[in-house]
């Protein structure tokens, strides 16, 4: 007979929070929500409370010092989750400010006990708990009293079969205080300001009895409340055969690119589930190639999603993209925001991929992407890209990423981020000078585990379409910027693939 207790997990109602908690909030747990002023503690607590409280599972919200109750009620009801109709039956607010004013620690505990006994709440919130401790310290309470108080409160609240939350302005979770030891769960909120952007972050430092999502996750506060964007996790390879099976999308099927001859250059199209980096200088035709890729998908019945990062309204999307968006055949995420986290973008992207059942994804471009990401995250941009590509790969979509490539002829680079290794395939576009004129060339640099052409082919943009022409023969040093006439020799083919006509 199984005699182990089963801990019920409560769905908090805060989008993304249950995922990082490891499946929800353990019932009857004693949780600490810490963070500096303005980090969102009260908002998170209210959102959880209105998400969980019912007349059968009532909540008691005890306000201590700090934010006056009137102000708290005034501002919190601006959030859409704040349901006035539930106040009274499902949610009760109680102010402990009068008890706090007496400076009598035991009286505060007695009042909390009295309120909890009177209504048997299933959820208890104390805001702000830090104020309780500070006030007690100021009034000369011995540290032994404080420890005793915290432990008594923790024990009693747990014994009353209530899931409890203490909100505190702890700046560091490493502060030496017994409440950190007593608590079953520790949620640390913080906000960082860098230049003109502000980023909110949450970390589950502890949650007894369940595996939480490690690391720091970003969140945003809107009129609907808090939304957490769990970090994309790259799972370790366990070594199990089941884990090593290829993604269902990587079935050997190849996708047409929508640009005649490019499929042949790629060795028969882009393998399904692959990620392709299209690198080239400004105006070389990267977005046109990406548009053709999406349009071809639409033609084949494969919906797509485009993530665009235009920084000015003048950088409008092409009519072809507009038409597809209007027709609902592709989804568009277009942002000019400059304080996003990679996790937030990935969250929206994955949501749209699932809604659209998209098979093709375009990110145009990495340069715009980097600008859109809050400065705080730019240092980790490469690592974040890796996580994003891994997350998209796990969904089985085929991804095309464009990247601005500075036309430096002293070296041969495919990406300014050193991110070329992240993708399965690379197509590079360059300008070359021939006979005192600029010409565009394109080459397939890499297609993982596949033969492909190694030719450098000239291409033109005609009526908004990419038209690939013949290989550039008779020159050497094209990509080095100093082409010179050379005898016309047969071009090599990567992995023995035949040259194209």
């Amino acid at each position, binding site marked *: 007979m199984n005699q182990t207790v089963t801990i019920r997990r409560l769905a908090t109602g805060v989008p993304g929070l249950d995922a990082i908690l490891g499946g929800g909030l353990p019932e009857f747990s004693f949780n600490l929500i810490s963070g500096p002023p303005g980090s969102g503690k009260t908002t998170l607590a209210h959102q959880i409370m209105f998400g969980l409280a019912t007349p059968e599972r009532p909540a008691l919200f005890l306000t201590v010092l700090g934010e006056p109750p009137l102000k708290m009620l005034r501002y919190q009801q601006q959030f859409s989750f704040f349901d006035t109709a539930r106040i009274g039956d499902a949610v009760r607010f109680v102010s*402990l*400010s009068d008890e706090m004013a007496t400076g009598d620690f035991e009286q505060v505990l007695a009042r909390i006990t009295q309120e909890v006994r009177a209504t048997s709440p299933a959820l208890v919130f104390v805001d702000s708990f830090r104020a309780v401790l500070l006030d007690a310290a100021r009034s000369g309470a011995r540290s032994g009293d404080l420890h005793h108080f915290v432990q008594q409160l923790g024990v009693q609240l747990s014994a009353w079969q209530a899931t409890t939350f203490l909100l505190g302005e702890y700046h560091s979770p490493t502060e030496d205080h017994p409440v950190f030891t007593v608590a079953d769960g520790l949620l640390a909120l913080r906000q960082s300001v860098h230049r003109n952007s502000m980023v909110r972050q949450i970390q589950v430092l502890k949650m007894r009895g369940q595996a939480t999502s490690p690391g720091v996750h970003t969140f945003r506060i809107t009129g609907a409340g808090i939304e957490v964007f769990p970090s994309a996790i790259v799972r370790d390879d366990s070594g199990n055969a089941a884990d090593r099976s290829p993604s269902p999308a990587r079935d050997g099927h190849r996708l047409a690119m929508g640009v005649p001859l490019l499929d042949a250059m790629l060795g028969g199209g882009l393998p399904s589930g692959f990620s392709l980096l299209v690198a080239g200088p400004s105006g070389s035709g990267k977005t046109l190639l990406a548009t053709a890729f999406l349009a071809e998908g639409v033609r084949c019945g494969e919906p797509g999603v485009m993530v665009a990062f235009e920084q000015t309204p003048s950088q409008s999307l092409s009519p072809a993209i507009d038409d597809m968006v209007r027709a609902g055949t592709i989804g568009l995420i277009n942002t000019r925001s400059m304080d996003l986290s990679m996790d937030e973008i990935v969250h929206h992207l994955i949501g749209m991929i699932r809604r659209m059942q998209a098979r093709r994804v375009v990110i145009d471009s990495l340069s715009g992407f980097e600008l859109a990401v809050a400065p705080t995250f730019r240092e980790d941009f490469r690592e974040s890209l890796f996580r994003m590509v891994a997350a998209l790969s796990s969904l089985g979509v085929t991804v095309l990423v464009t990247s601005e490539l500075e036309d430096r002829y002293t070296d041969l680079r495919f990406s300014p981020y050193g991110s070329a290794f992240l993708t399965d395939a690379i197509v590079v576009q360059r300008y070359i000078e021939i006979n005192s004129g600029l010409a565009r060339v394109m080459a397939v640099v890499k297609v993982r585990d596949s033969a492909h052409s190694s030719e450098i082919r000239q291409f033109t943009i005609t009526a908004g379409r990419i038209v690939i022409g013949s290989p550039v023969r008779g020159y050497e040093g094209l990509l080095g910027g100093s082409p010179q006439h050379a005898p016309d020799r047969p071009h090599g083919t990567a992995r023995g693939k035949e040259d194209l006509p």
Partner: protein
Amino acid sequence: MAMTDTGEDARRLAIRKTLHRSVGTGSGAAALPAAFLALWQQTARQLEPVIGARGVDVLFGRALHLTAQRFLWLPSTTHDNRTASLEVLQTCLAGRSAAEVSDVGETLLLTFTGLLAGMVGESLTGRLLGADWTAGESQEQEQPRRQA
């Protein structure tokens, strides 16, 4: 009578109904101050657990100040102590006519609840003040249907 369309109308109606219940008709001016005091204490009791005694004191002090601007014979200064302020107010009301007492009492309560509604909204004010305050509104809203 038109259906109430503002929170203030509903609160005014609730005050009148409650006083009518507690004082009854034809009781005269003598019973009114005590009735207002009782209604005020009931309101304070309802709110204190939620916004704290200090929160009630602050709102009451402001409401009394605003009411005194309209009734110049009221004390223009208020005590920090709510009990002391109420005692002064009661003394002032003792020699006044029923109409004056009724007017002051209603204005004070309306101002007080108006300040609360200005802070947290009419809807939440109704929830915090409890059934007696919302009963007036619902009864009033039912009236036109019965008439129709």
